Each structure stands twice: as structure tokens, then as C-alpha cells.
């Protein structure tokens, strides 16, 4: 294992310490591993809280700030935070207008956030609306399974709902933005290498030199299938085709196209992939109105990328363009 870390057990707290030092505009509670915008609770504003296992940076801590999250909660690497952390964050960001929890669909996250919402309501009377993101088309969805994983759409949902909250929309409307984004977004990822969990010390799975894993999750979960390494042009198809099969992205007001790096793939490749994705979308009659390219939802040092498409309407485009000021996403401010 080759990492710039000290003891594996200290990675999360020490990384948060660095985040705090680098961004004096954030307030970081190292004990509870919560990142707050410094001015939270913002009077009258619905608060947005998200979180999950660490190892996906900048998600979620890097998305705290004006126009996005009020607080992010960091679990251990690839391990959901516990309810106590979530309750603490929820309590500290609520201005009375209620709190939206954005939860990626993993059993651990869902259950821990659920308990937190129950405790928060019971102990403090804070109104919490939790919305789950589950956009990963690699996983067969079904009423009877754990369902799709929450991946790339989560980044877009945090931005868009953050703008809605900043604009003063009430609790249910902010939660609705997350639901709309989740309903209209789909993702699919590919890994060229496996990431290494610090505590494990070796790659989660073996991926021989000539192979890649299509439909991989963000914790090294297996994908749909393992296939020979292919040119970027083909990879774009392998990722986009299942997305386009799952939802009709043509017509309407167009899409936000998001090419996300999984941690060890540099920008030169991500832009190249974006070029392939954009070309393929044009052929498929999908109109891209906004885009995002970069490592925004990583999986430790996994090489690879994911593609997310989100159907948007005028309202969502306006929310996208609204100012955002976080370490990980910043414009208009």
C-alpha cells in the first residue's frame, strides 16, 4: 500500500484536520467528524445535511458551504457514520425551518440516518426529511432487493437542493428537488484498478492488467461484468448505453452530463472521456446543457470514472447556475 498517511486508523480525522486548516471558512468538529458551514444555522433557511463513509472526497465535506450543504458527516473509510453524529449535525444546523438528509442508498447509511432522524425528532422535535439517492444503473433495481446504489447523482442533488434551500424554498420543496434529481438521474461507473482501504492494506479486488470492471460501485463492489480493457470510445458506450436504456434522455430541456473521476485517474483522461461521452450523446440526440468533469465522488485511489446524466428543466438549470461556494464546487460567488 502506497499512501500519504500516518496510521490507517487516523486517516479520517487527520484528513479532516487538514481540511479545517485549509478552509478557515468551514467549522470542523473533529470529535464528531462533522464539517459545518461557519454561519450555520442560517436563519430561516432549510438546512441540508449529508454524509456517509469517508474515501469519497470531496464528497461530502468538500461540498459544505453557501449554496450547497450546511453540514457533512464523515464515517470511517467506506463505513456509514453512526446516528449520534447525524443527530449532532442535524441539531446544529436546524434554524427551525427543518433539515433535509441526503442519503446514498447503502443499507448502512440508510439505517443509520433513519435512526438518527427518529432520534432527532424524538429528542429535539426537529423536522427531518430524508431523501435517498439510488442512481446506479449497474445494479438491477427491484422492490425486493437493497436496490440501486447512490452515486454520482448525489453530487448534483447536493448542489441543486443547496441552491433551492439558499433561495428560501421550504422544507418539502427542497426535499422535492432531491427527489426530482434522483428520479431523473442515472449513473454507471468503470474501474481500471481497485482502490486500497487503508486498514486493509491491499487492493479490495484483483484486476489483472488487461481487464476492467464495468458497473463497479464506489466501495470496490463488483460490477456487472469484467471485460478486456477497451479504448475510451468503447468505454463511453459501455457506460452510456445502460443509462440511455434505462431512461429516455432525449428531448425536453436537455441534460447535465457529469464525468466523474474515481480517484487515481487524472484530468487529462477525464476530459478525453468527456469528449467521447459528449460525442456519443450528440449522436444519440441527447442535448447537453451543462457539464461537470473532475474527481468529485471518488473511491479512494481507484482508477476509473463514472458517468452521470441528469434530465433537467429550466428550474434545475437555474438552480445549477446559482452561486455555490464550497471547497469542491465554486462559482458565481
Amino acid at each position, binding site marked *: 500500500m502506497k499512501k500519504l498517511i500516518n496510521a490507517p486508523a487516523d486517516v479520517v480525522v487527520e484528513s479532516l484536520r487538514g481540511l479545517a486548516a485549509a478552509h478557515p471558512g468551514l467549522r470542523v468538529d473533529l470529535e464528531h467528524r462533522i464539517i459545518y458551514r461557519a454561519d450555520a444555522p442560517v436563519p430561516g433557511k432549510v438546512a441540508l445535511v449529508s454524509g456517509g*463513509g469517508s474515501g469519497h472526497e470531496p464528497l461530502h465535506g468538500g461540498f459544505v458551504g453557501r449554496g450547497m450543504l450546511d453540514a457533512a458527516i464523515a*464515517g*470511517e473509510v*467506506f*463505513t*456509514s*457514520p*453512526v*446516528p*449520534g453524529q447525524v443527530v449532532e449535525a442535524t441539531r446544529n444546523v436546524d434554524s427551525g425551518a427543518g433539515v433535509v438528509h441526503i442519503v446514498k442508498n*447503502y*443499507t*448502512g447509511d440508510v*439505517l*443509520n440516518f*433513519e*435512526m438518527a432522524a427518529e432520534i432527532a425528532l424524538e429528542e429535539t422535535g426537529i423536522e427531518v426529511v430524508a431523501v435517498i439517492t439510488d442512481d446506479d444503473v449497474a*445494479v*438491477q433495481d*427491484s422492490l*425486493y*432487493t*437493497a436496490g440501486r*446504489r447512490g452515486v454520482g447523482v448525489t453530487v448534483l442533488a447536493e448542489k441543486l437542493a443547496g441552491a433551492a434551500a439558499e433561495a428560501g424554498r421550504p422544507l418539502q420543496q427542497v426535499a422535492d428537488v432531491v427527489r426530482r434529481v434522483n428520479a431523473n438521474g442515472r449513473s454507471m461507473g468503470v474501474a481500471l484498478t481497485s482502490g486500497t482501504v487503508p*486498514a*486493509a492494506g491491499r487492493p*479490495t479486488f484483483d484486476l489483472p492488467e488487461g481487464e476492467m470492471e464495468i458497473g463497479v*460501485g464506489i*466501495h*470496490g*463492489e*463488483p460490477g456487472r461484468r469484467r471485460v478486456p480493457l477497451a479504448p475510451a470510445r468503447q468505454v463511453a458506450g459501455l457506460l452510456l448505453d445502460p443509462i440511455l436504456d434505462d431512461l429516455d434522455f432525449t428531448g425536453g430541456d436537455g441534460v447535465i452530463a457529469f464525468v466523474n473521476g474515481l480517484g487515481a485517474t487524472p484530468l487529462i483522461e477525464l476530459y478525453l472521456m468527456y469528449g467521447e461521452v459528449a460525442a456519443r450523446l450528440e449522436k444519440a440526440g441527447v442535448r447537453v446543457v451543462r457539464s461537470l468533469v473532475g474527481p468529485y465522488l471518488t473511491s479512494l485511489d481507484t482508477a476509473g470514472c463514472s458517468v452521470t446524466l441528469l434530465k433537467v428543466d429550466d428550474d434545475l438549470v437555474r438552480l445549477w447556475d446559482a452561486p455555490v461556494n464550497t471547497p469542491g464546487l465554486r462559482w458565481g460567488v
Partner: protein
Amino acid sequence: MSEIVDVTTLRSWLIRFAGDVEEHAAQLTELDSAIGDADHGSNLTRGLKAMVSVLADGTTPPSIGPMLKQSGMALVSSVGGASGPLYGTFFLRMATSAGECDALGPDSLAAAFRAGLEGVLARGQAVAGDKTMLDALIPAVETLEAALNEGRPFGEALKASADAAEAGRDATTPMLARKGRASYLGERSVGHQDPGATSTALLFRAAANTMIDGEDNQ
């Protein structure tokens, strides 16, 4: 043998469970690495250590409900994985069922287990056959209830319950996972024993081993 389970015995049960899990931590993690994310052993060990230190400190409340509540909260507050809220809920619901009392008779214990089971079902939204801890938990509780209904002695009923949990655990191997991380594997989850069912079997074996007089520390 006594048919009454008092606070001290329940405490022994939980501590025994913690010890057994720690002993089997590597196996649990190994099972989780085949179909999950290789942390069930360390998750539970961490959580149960937190629980034991709550049970061990002087402030442990003397009555059953509060003790089980503290135990459940300790788990919930320290695990972070799926198993934390699930095991936590199990003990929290047992706590509510037991209430502020000092000892449970066989039927009250079975009722507390039943309440715990209902809590896990409600929390996790899984059903029998999904290849989860429920596949050990459901037969364990149902077997205990049936044995008591049939009027079999408490000790025998507890042993039957532990046996049923282990049989249920073994039965998870050919199942296809439909809940938790293992479900992402689809067909590839078949042929592996579920880690959560494995730890649940330890829980009921620990009950049999601690709640039957003279069988503690075997």
C-alpha cells in the same frame, strides 16, 4: 435449574456474546469479505467492546429494560455499518418489551426476543430467505416460542433455539442475497455463508450457554 433470567444473567449473556464474537472476528470478517466489505467482524467487535465497557462501568442500571437500552445504544453509537442499527434495534426493542423489571421468565424472554425480531424486520425491511441475519434470528425465536408452547423445559428450549439459529445460519449458504451489500453480487452471492447470520447464531448459542444454570463459561 432456575427458569428465571435475572439482570446478572442477561449481563453475562451479552458479555459472553461479545467474547464469542471477538473470538470469531476473523471468521466473520472473512465471510464478509467474500460477499460484503470485509468488516463485519471488526464492526461487531468494536460495537460490542463499547457495549461491554458500558455494562462494566459502575453506572450500569440494575433493571433489565434500561440495561438492554444502554447496550443497544452502545452498539448503535459505535458500529456505523448495517449491523449496528440492526443489532442495536434488536436490543432496544427487547428493552422496551422487558421494561423496568429485574428478571424475566421464559415467556417474557421469548416475548422480548420476538419484539427484537420485529424491530429488525421493521428496520431492515428484509424477509426470511434474503440471506441476512434474519435467517438465523427468525428460526431461533420461532423455535424458542414453539418449544415453550409445547411445554418443554426452559433449558431444552434455549438449546433448541440455538440449534435452530445455527441451522438457519447454515441454510444461508445456498441463498441468493437480496439485502445489504451482498445483494450487489447477485448470483455470485450463492455458495457463501452470511456473516450476519453467523454472528446471530453466536448470540443464541451464548444465550443457551449463559442462561442455563451452571452452563456459563462453558
